[in-house]
């Protein structure tokens, strides 16, 4: 069996990649994809620790996080579509104004 540490390290690397991508990309949709990546690395940590402790509660929490992610994506993409109708752009630099 692979030790828990390796899984945590993998999750850390995935999280870092997601964070770097979030800061580097200028397209709203790609930034959103990076958020999903970070969310998934957090899920991986929970599942890895669930096995380390032999406790199913963390897995149940991951299930709830999955539901939450679905709701988040629905709202987030709705916001992106609504902004796109107003500005005809998905570049964050064009969306810096606070006044609609």
């Amino acid at each position: 069996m692979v030790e828990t540490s390796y899984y945590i390290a993998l999750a850390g690397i995935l999280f870092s990649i997601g964070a770097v991508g979030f800061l580097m990309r200028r397209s709203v949709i790609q930034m959103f994809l990076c958020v999903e990546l970070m969310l998934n690395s957090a899920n991986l940590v929970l599942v890895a620790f669930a096995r380390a402790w032999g406790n199913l509660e963390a897995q149940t929490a991951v299930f709830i996080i999955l539901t939450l992610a679905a709701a988040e994506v629905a709202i987030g993409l709705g916001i992106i579509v609504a902004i796109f109708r107003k500005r005809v752009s998905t570049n964050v630099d064009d969306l810096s104004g606070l006044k609609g």
Partner: protein
Amino acid sequence: MIVFVLLSLLAIAGALGTILWKNAVYSALSLVGTLLALACIFVTLEAQFLASVQVIVYAGAIMVLFLFVIMLLNAQYPSEDVDPLPWLSPVVIAGGVVLAGALAYTAFLYKAPKPLAEAAKALQGGAPGPVGETLFTKFLLPFEAVSLLLIIAVVGAVALVKREPEAKVQRETLEERATHTPEEVVV
């Protein structure tokens, strides 16, 4: 160990693809690869139910929604504008490498609380039955809260993308039309 190394390489490659492709469709498909690799890793972590849910909900439903929106908005390609912060990328990459190193280092400080084989046995393979039992006993309140959240999300998403009602157009009723003489009616 070989399986883990292969799967993690696949996951990392997918993640790098997600952030490096210029085309958003390629990015989304790379993320699907990462999610599928993570689903396989979940199987090796005794979480079979979560692995299947990951494939169905994440790689299936959520990523399809992403691709749908990318193609709907025709947003595959980034705009050709000049980068307003040219110094940002090197700083961010350096920060990311430091963050990854720190997190990986911290991970190896972790001491297992009990023997792994013994703990893994208690999970019963993470089958739907045991997970569902936890969900409907200890996690009943979060479960209900999430159902409320989903309702709010659905209503919110519909409200966000709803178009403004168009200005009311004055339409001629049939009775008004009938009062016109045939010469007046414009064909």
